[in-house]
């Protein structure tokens, strides 16, 4: 049932894209942007690899901050997304690279301090 319904919906869209060049162009633009954003996100995720903010912070706060300055905004975003460092979405919208890096440092610092207390449990 659902497969036939979806096939019907897609046929309406493809027919419109073929018959209406303006609509077709807008569809192309939207899909191209999605592909570009997705590819960039993938590249950033690959570049950060196994970089773990909490582990790196434990090695030394200053060295950690220095490491972050070498990363671009997309890579910083990838770290934040991968480790869910912004659950309250405080960094929603356009945020500077410096603010992203500061946020990561702050979250890592708090986690490290909490863990240090746990070791004294």
């Amino acid at each position, binding site marked *: 049932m659902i497969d036939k319904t979806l096939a019907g919906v897609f046929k309406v869209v493809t027919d419109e894209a073929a018959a209406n060049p303006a609509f077709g162009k807008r569809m192309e633009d939207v899909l191209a942007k999605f592909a570009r954003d997705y590819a960039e996100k993938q590249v950033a995720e690959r570049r950060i690899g196994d970089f773990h903010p909490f*582990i790196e912070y434990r090695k030394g706060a200053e060295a950690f901050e220095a490491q972050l300055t070498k990363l671009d905004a997309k890579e910083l975003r990838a770290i934040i997304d991968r*480790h*869910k460092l912004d659950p309250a979405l405080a960094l929603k919208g356009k945020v500077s690279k410096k603010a992203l890096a500061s946020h990561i440092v702050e979250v890592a610092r708090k986690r490290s301090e909490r863990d240090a207390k746990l070791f004294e449990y």
Partner: protein
Amino acid sequence: MPPRTVSVVNMKGGVGKSTTVASLAETLAVEGVRVLVIDLDPQSNVSMMLAGPERWVELRQKGKTIDDYFNQFVQTDSHPKFLRDCLAYEVGDVSGEMRLDLLISTPEFRYIERHALEKWVKQAFDVRQIGNRFAKLTQAAIDSVQDSYDLVLFDCPPGISIFAEAAIELSEFIVIPTIPDYISRLGIFSFRKRALRSMEQRRFTEDRIWTLITKYEASNTLHQSEAALLKDQFNVFETRIPQTEQIARAAEWFDAKRTLDQKYGEATNVIRRFAGEFREKVGLI
């Protein structure tokens, strides 16, 4: 040579302590290691897994339980018993020639601790001394059967009971099963200092306390992140026990004997790998 003594412990419940004990005991027994499992958890999960519900009921009726064994030291009117007379021999539903024995627990086991506290506190013992007393009694019990086993595995209850403390006190190694998430990790911290102190008093080092990552989901980014953090902060086994249906199903007793591969399915290789790592760490090669 006396058997290796290992406690499987975590303050947090549901992290896979009993599952770890049962699968490790069966795998090692299949490989020829002579294993005695001592169930210290009144929930009796590992007893049910290794003896099966019918035999567990039968053993209770015959008074062959850990409660019956320790009761003789708490209630003076009870009959003296030897550990060897309380054991369930040749347990497990895995096929093959093996030596895998068990001291079962029952829900009544929690009363032994309560009675001991009531009685010995009145006699001016403090909780620490009562813990030491149980540790000595347990050690003496193990000594009485030491020629029969290469390994004694304690399945400790969640939380810290006097018996769990006693097990830690006399264990040469501690295995801490942990799900790699924030709350399960807290379970390690809550008794780590206690375990470390016990190890240090016996001139052992921290390399005898090992964390085992359990219920691991490889595609879960929280698990990936917390597992990396655990590895950075503690001694962690390389092998991670995955969250699989087959491991969960293996907890249910099956009347017909089956091979390890039939019991654990695709997870058998992981369980064997963990057993290999465990043998290396505790010196059971």
